[in-house]
């Protein structure tokens, strides 16, 4: 087999104020391969990609693209696209105000002879594209009406549709469910067979072993090595990424149901939210981890938000420790000892222009009220403690949170909630975009918190993660709670329940 190289990057170095994000990294991509780029949060994966696509200008290093004599130095995504590099970035980067169709074609619309946009052709091609991906959506609808997952699929569709030699996917699967992932993989394989070189970033090891041909591992901005898939078994990969062996995930197992008799912490009766969540009952006891599961868009997040008061419930009652409460505003919920980590990090999680310290103490400050400023010394102590505890990779506590890598931003928000020491914590996709090592830590943390007597509501798209941590699973379908699973939970049973085959 002839290994024709489509892309070589040599000695890429990139500095941000106070951070050496990439230090002489080499990367080679061959024609018709799917190449996994792996590393912990903050290892420099996204930065390497952005250097390639011209979002950042690297400080030194050379980039060669197949078919070009000179080393290329892209100055903008536009240039990169002209050079045959098409990209899906880590955070969804589409325009919420445009229609799906326009998002797919913006900047490269089909034109008529007169030079104007040919909307008919555009519509047809957009519908075709969506059909190919197996998505049944109205392409003329504005993008903001669709969920994050669908937006992710649309971003992928856009990238794929471009004539490209190199396709880069930076954590495309972090908000997709299994069926979507499957669709994506078949698409990737098809492109590979057409000779496109694909760079694939993900934190899901199974996915790497499912589709990839080759792996490059980064650690702390340094290249660890490049391996063919077959030569790097799972354990070695983890070791390469983390620089040490870790205790495997399998060990974690909740002491199931030991707290079954404990006091109910939260009980919802007939709570509902117009048009989205039909009335549901739910009880959460102290020391219990309850999972919410269901298909994409089945309303898991919405249900959690209704409890927390992020979306105000229209009917029903909510009791906290057997006392009827009214929650009009998240702060009311927080005063009752709740906390919620929202699923959309960019829109509802981080406050990008504040520092890590400020982001961490935000929750405590809200509880103390505006007149009662947390003294600077305490703020620093708290921030330092959680940076240490969650191993947040940041140059200092005064770094702006937007300068952290995606996964580390997530940790900062988790820290915010842990700092408020809630009795009841809602974690909506806390492990999205988080590396394998930290994921384990977070799962352990969840169980530890439950052991301390807190109630946890946990939402995740990964079923085994849920199985590993939850005592009980509530199943949602089309905004309705259709049942609960308890006791002997297996992947099959859960899948069955979600799909609606079994009425639980």
């Amino acid at each position: 087999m002839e290994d024709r190289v489509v892309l070589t990057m040599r000695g890429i170095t990139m500095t941000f104020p106070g951070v050496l994000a990439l230090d002489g990294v080499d990367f080679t991509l061959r024609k018709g391969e799917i190449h996994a780029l792996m590393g912990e949060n903050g290892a420099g994966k996204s930065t390497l990609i952005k250097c390639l696509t011209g979002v950042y200008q690297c400080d030194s290093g050379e980039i060669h693209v197949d078919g070009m004599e000179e080393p290329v130095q892209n100055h903008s995504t536009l240039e990169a696209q002209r050079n045959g590099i098409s990209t899906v970035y880590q955070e969804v980067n589409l325009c919420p105000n445009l229609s799906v169709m326009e998002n797919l074609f913006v900047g490269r619309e089909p034109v008529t002879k007169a030079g104007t946009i040919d909307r008919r052709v555009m519509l047809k091609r957009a519908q075709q594209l969506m059909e190919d991906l197996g998505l049944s959506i109205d392409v003329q609808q504005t993008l903001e009406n669709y969920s994050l997952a669908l937006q992710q699929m649309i971003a992928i569709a856009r990238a794929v549709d471009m004539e490209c030699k190199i396709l880069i996917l930076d954590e495309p699967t972090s908000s997709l469910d299994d069926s979507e992932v499957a669709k994506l993989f078949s698409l990737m394989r098809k492109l590979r067979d057409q000779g496109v070189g694909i760079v694939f970033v993900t934190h899901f090891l199974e996915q790497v072993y499912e589709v990839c041909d080759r792996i490059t591992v980064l650690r702390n901005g340094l290249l660890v090595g490049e391996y063919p898939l077959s030569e790097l078994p799972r354990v070695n990969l983890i070791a390469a990424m983390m620089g040490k062996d870790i205790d495997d995930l399998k060990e974690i197992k909740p002491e199931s149901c030991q707290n079954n008799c404990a006091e109910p912490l939260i009980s919802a009766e007939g709570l509902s939210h117009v048009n989205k969540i039909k009335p549901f009952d739910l009880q959460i006891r102290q020391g219990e981890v309850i999972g919410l599961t269901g298909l994409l868009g089945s309303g898991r997040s919405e249900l959690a938000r209704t409890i927390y008061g992020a979306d105000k419930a229209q009917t029903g009652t909510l009791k906290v420790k057997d006392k009827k409460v009214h929650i009009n505003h998240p702060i009311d919920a927080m005063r009752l000892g709740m906390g919620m980590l929202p699923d959309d990090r960019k829109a509802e999680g981080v406050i990008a222009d504040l520092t890590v310290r400020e982001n961490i103490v935000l929750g405590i400050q809200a509880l103390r009220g505006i007149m009662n400023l947390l003294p600077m010394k305490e703020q620093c102590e708290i921030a330092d403690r959680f940076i240490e505890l969650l191993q947040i990779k940041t140059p200092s506590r005064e770094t702006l949170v937007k300068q952290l890598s995606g996964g580390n931003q997530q940790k900062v928000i988790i820290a915010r909630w842990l700092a408020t020491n809630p009795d009841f914590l809602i974690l909506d996709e806390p492990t999205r975009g988080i590396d394998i090592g930290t994921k384990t830590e977070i799962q352990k943390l969840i169980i530890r918190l439950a052991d301390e007597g807190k109630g946890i509501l946990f939402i995740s798209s990964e079923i085994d993660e849920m199985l590993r941590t939850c005592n009980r699973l509530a199943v949602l379908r089309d905004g309705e709670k259709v049942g609960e699973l308890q006791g002997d939970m297996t992947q099959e049973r859960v899948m069955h329940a979600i799909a609606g085959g079994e009425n639980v």
Partner: protein
Amino acid sequence: MKIKRAIKKITGMQMFLPIASMLLVMAVNIIYDVSNGNAVFNFFTISLRNGVLFGRIIDILNRGSEVAILAIGMTLVVSAAAGADISVGSVMSLAGGMCCMLLAGFGNANVSQYAVPLWVGLVAGLAIACLCGAFNGYLVSYLNIQPMVATLILFSAGRAIGLLLCNSTIVYVRVPSFQFLGGYFWMLPTPIIIAAACVLVMSLILKHTALGMYIQSVGINKNAARIAGFKSRRIIFTAFVISGLCAGIAGLVATSRIYSADTNNIGLNMELDAILAVALGGNSLGGGKFRLAGSIVGAYTIQAITTTLYALGISSAQAPVFKAVIVILIVTIQSPAVTAYFERRAVAKALRANKEAMRV
């Protein structure tokens, strides 16, 4: 080497650019004075005349007071709501009109005696200003109307309401005690002291309460701040009320200066100056992080430009051309593109140094 490090330390300071811009404006005067054969620091001389301090610097501090006070409120609004409050000029005039109307009694245009005690007039002026702020705040925070659009309403109505209160005339209150706010206190013009007091109070509030953190969080990401437990709407509302209050204070100062409610002219175009002050201070008009000190320096920079143009004898109709050029110069120096350019050069230099060190 030591000097170099010191320079770096100074240029790296947050307030460096706004202050440097200010000094730049001042430097023009030195050049003008020197080329005209005046004493080098002619512009800067401060003397004691008629028992009060006298000089252009005092003029700048004095005349800049209103904009400085407005800039306080404007900074908070811009930060929290990611949009400007363009009604402040009108609200100033309304506050002044309200105050004078009460002090003179409705329908009287020229009095030398208070109709109601002085404090009633002042409080009423501030109260109506706060009310205006609340109105703006309500529209922006609870009805989700964009700041500039919401404040457009009072921008056009505020002045007119003030005029109606004053029965469409300029109401003169010729009582010496009313002139105090715009007059002199000991050796200094009172407006300077009022502005200083406002700045002091606001910086103490920012220092000792979490207001700053609340406002910035809300301004950067309203939804995230809400989830994290801040009442985003209430914060935005508060920012507008503070802005209204500041406009009220500024309006009373401006009114007191001329001991009359010249509703047509008080605060005319001041909203532009206030917004400009915020921007010259290095703050983003897109909301989020703010530096109060920057805005204040910005406010006095604007007045320094105006006073300088007066000193150079440039016709007031043509002065805007120069003002425009200076403003563009200053914001270009502070612009992200230029700053980024210098940063990149610094990085490149450091890298080169690194490489050389490695070779050795």
